[in-house]
């Protein structure tokens, strides 16, 4: 689907609307994904889809309907359904209005060669990776995807916004008889994805992780590679960096706003316009992305808003609305953490008795308000003693507070890495913290 087609659907929708206010959103995506395991391609898929979602407003009554049948008849039917739902719904007394138009910055997030990547090119990428590990009695698994997104938003108050973007993602888990190693690369530009570089990183990790040992789980100094840091931030955002969680008093921000809660070099923000991430100039209400700081030198700052949450507080949206319908409210989709000065090697050298974590697995909130999470380490966990990695470890379970972890940070990596987040991207450094609570261990 191209820009003209998206805008035409939006215009057709709004021109037929018979409600007080109307919002139309078109989300279109073409994704191709080549998946491999046991060093062969075993699943290889392509999907093209586009959906129109209409939010119809009658006073304070709201109706939402969507369809991916984008014929004229279907557009009329979606409008009619959304309006009918609004008419039959009780008023939402907290609703004020859809947002009005605001200037939107230009962002260049579309890379033609990503959109043009062929199945053969992805297969050749996989072949390069598989060839790189040949002779090591290691099996490769992973996925290489290239995605093209179009987003169009318009409303009856004059909002009209369109953006397109691309995403290339290549990840691998290499498996030896008793170890695993992970690596991935993310970029809007498939030309930046180097399969051999990914293979080298994961191969070294897999070889180093062979014959893992058990240790007694306890609180220990810990070095986190960016893979793990990104996931930690994603969960922090999910649990407490949206305005709704604060308004409902279930966020850590309720207790820490304006207070020092993390180490004083920790600065975390969201910036949808930064081209280093998966840039996105506006949100799913067509509101411009504003830069929002969550931690500034360790002090807890603001949270992100959509128009609903913003109107409740007499504020303006920060441009972080999610697609309708959703029960989460606003979420940051383009988070960044400021880099420090350290290399991972320097972090390891600073550890007396600790652990090096490559990535997390199956993280879940245990107590959102205290940012307590649990999860496992995966695909490369190592013991550090007296400044050196001394042996690989069986995967460990942790039950730890993200906030306490950030408060205990002693070193911050100087290089940032982009990781795919729940929706967008998260760009973070490696971290070393003085204490992280391990509460269990598995057998591999």
């Amino acid at each position, binding site marked *: 689907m191209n820009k003209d087609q998206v805008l035409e659907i939006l215009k057709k929708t709004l021109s037929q609307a018979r409600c007080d206010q109307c919002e139309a959103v078109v989300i279109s995506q073409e994704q191709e994904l080549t998946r491999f395991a*046991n060093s062969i391609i075993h699943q290889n898929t392509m999907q093209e889809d586009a959906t129109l979602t209409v939010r119809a407003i009658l006073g304070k009554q709201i109706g939402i309907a969507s369809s*991916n049948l984008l014929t004229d008849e279907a557009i009329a039917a979606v409008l009619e359904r959304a309006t009918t739902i609004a008419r039959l*719904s009780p008023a939402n007394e907290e609703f004020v209005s859809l947002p009005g138009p605001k200037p939107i910055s230009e962002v260049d997030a579309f890379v033609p060669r990503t959109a043009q990547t062929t199945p053969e090119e992805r297969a050749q990428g996989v072949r390069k990776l598989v060839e790189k590990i040949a002779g090591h009695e290691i099996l490769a698994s992973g996925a290489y995807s290239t995605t093209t997104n179009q987003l169009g938003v318009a409303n009856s108050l004059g909002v009209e916004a369109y953006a397109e973007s691309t995403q290339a993602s290549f990840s691998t888990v290499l498996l030896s008889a008793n170890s*695993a190693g992970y690596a991935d690369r993310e970029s809007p530009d498939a030309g930046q994805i180097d399969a051999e570089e990914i293979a080298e990183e994961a191969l070294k990790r897999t070889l180093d992780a062979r014959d893992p040992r058990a240790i007694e789980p306890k609180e220990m100094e810990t070095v986190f590679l960016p893979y793990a840091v990104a996931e930690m931030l994603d969960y922090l955002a999910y649990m407490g960096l949206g305005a709704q969680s604060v308004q409902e*008093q279930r966020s850590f921000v309720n207790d820490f706003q304006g207070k020092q809660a993390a180490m004083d070099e920790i600065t975390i923000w969201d910036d949808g316009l930064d081209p280093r991430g998966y840039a996105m100039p506006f949100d799913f209400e067509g509101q411009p992305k504003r830069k929002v700081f969550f931690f500034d030198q360790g002090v807890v700052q603001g949270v992100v808003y959509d128009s609903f949450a913003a109107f409740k507080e007499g504020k303006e949206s920060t441009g972080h609305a999610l697609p309708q319908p959703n029960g989460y409210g606003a979420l940051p989709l383009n988070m960044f953490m400021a880099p420090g000065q350290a290399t991972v090697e320097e972090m390891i050298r600073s550890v007396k008795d600790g652990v090096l974590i490559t990535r997390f697995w199956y993280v879940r909130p245990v107590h959102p308000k205290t940012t307590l999470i649990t999860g496992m380490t995966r695909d490369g966990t190592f013991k550090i003693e007296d400044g050196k990695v001394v042996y690989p470890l069986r995967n460990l379970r942790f039950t730890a507070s993200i906030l306490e972890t950030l408060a205990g940070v002693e070193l911050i990596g100087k290089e940032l890495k982009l990781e795919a987040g729940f929706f967008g991207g998260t760009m973070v450094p490696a971290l070393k913290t003085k204490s992280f609570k391990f509460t269990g261990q598995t057998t591999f």
Partner: protein
Amino acid sequence: MNLRELTELCLNQTKQLGCSYADIRILRREQQELSLKNSNVENIAHGEDFGFGVRVLKNGAWGFASSRTLSPEKVKEITAKAVRIAEASAIVKQKDVLLAAVPPVTAKLAATFQIDPFQVPLEEKIQFLGRIDDKLHQVKGVTISRAFMNFWKENKVFASTEGSYIEQDKIESGGGMEAMAVGEGDYQIRSFPNSMGGNVRAYGYEFVQSLGLLENAERIGREAVSLLTAKPCPSGEMDLILESSQLGLQIHESCGHPTELDRVFGTEASYAGTSFMTPDQLGKLQYGSPQVNIVADATSPGGLGTFAYDDEGAPAQCVDIIRQGRFVGYLTSRETARVLNVPNSAAMRADGWGRMPIIRMTNISLLPGDASLDEIIADTEHGLYLITNKSWSIDDKRLNFQFGTEMAYEIENGRLGAVVKNATYTGMTPQFWNSCDAVAGKDFWTLWGLVNCGKGQPSQAMHVGHGAAPARFRKVQVGVMKG
């Protein structure tokens, strides 16, 4: 062209292009969601989704392509794309994919329901939710109340080059409620009848009416508030009784996933992980105690994992996974069953038209025992009775797990005692299931529906079922969190 002609157009084209096998699925889905929160509408929305997916085997490798646009021209284009993708897959292959035989079938199957939820007036549903939400919110101390319903309708056509043409319709209905309470540095939640979307079954609106939402609303609100002042979960080893829905999730994570044969064969290693239940353990591993009997039953009435034919056109099965504690069966596909040379348990399903089918749980259920819940509690000297899941995590081979529940009761000398908050328990899968020494009987057995089972790349969220009655587990580690 009608749907049948479009499937023939696709399948004939795959034969002309040299495919050894192909299938096409055409799906139409509708979803309606309604939720009220703190006496306000949170969401009332309707969605429809339509499209088709073509799966082909060419040069011994898989290709899949899909589109929302169903027209003869698009069918030809997408079919050619699927073939091209399969040819690209063959660039990195070792052996040709081979499939276990499935007899061709022509069938038309209707959905099971008494009241079509999409025909129930919106006003009636909203009014019902409003009464539930009001009851929750009237409880002093409840800061957030939420009541919700969800309905799904699916019309699916499956056709293959082996001659199958299957039409299956399905309706699913579910509902539930949540009450949240906030205290100093604390936040507690109670859900009913389950967390993560209440309960959902492949029935009509009558299922939502039967859930007892209104009758339980005030109790759930009170429980949420009481948790703020409840004592924290103790630490140490003790006996646990898991309530049915929590046990359902325990089954899901520690038995359902590790018996998916694609995971076992490593084809999910890059995302969901692998499994400790390897083929050399089949028939040998004492997975649990003799009280533990677990089946994969795609024929359970009203289950979210119930169907007549899976997305490879294979007929639904009920197979033993764990028999008297011994590991005896897998969830399989045509491809994996052929590799292991076992009967296909027909567990291939796709999340919609745009995804390739992968092995998914059907209804993975613990068969009931013969005790009553009261008898099990009375027979427990010191322990915890854990209710409704709040947190869940398990390693990538499905061994080390940790769960948290919304609420627990102390058990002392055979009686339920004080309420406990922030309860967690952890363990290793075989040791845990081998510590099971009592399962409640069929009167206490409930079939639960989960709608958020994630697996695959690109991600697929599947609707699956789990039946369980409360059961007791001896000497389990509890209390790993602070406060």
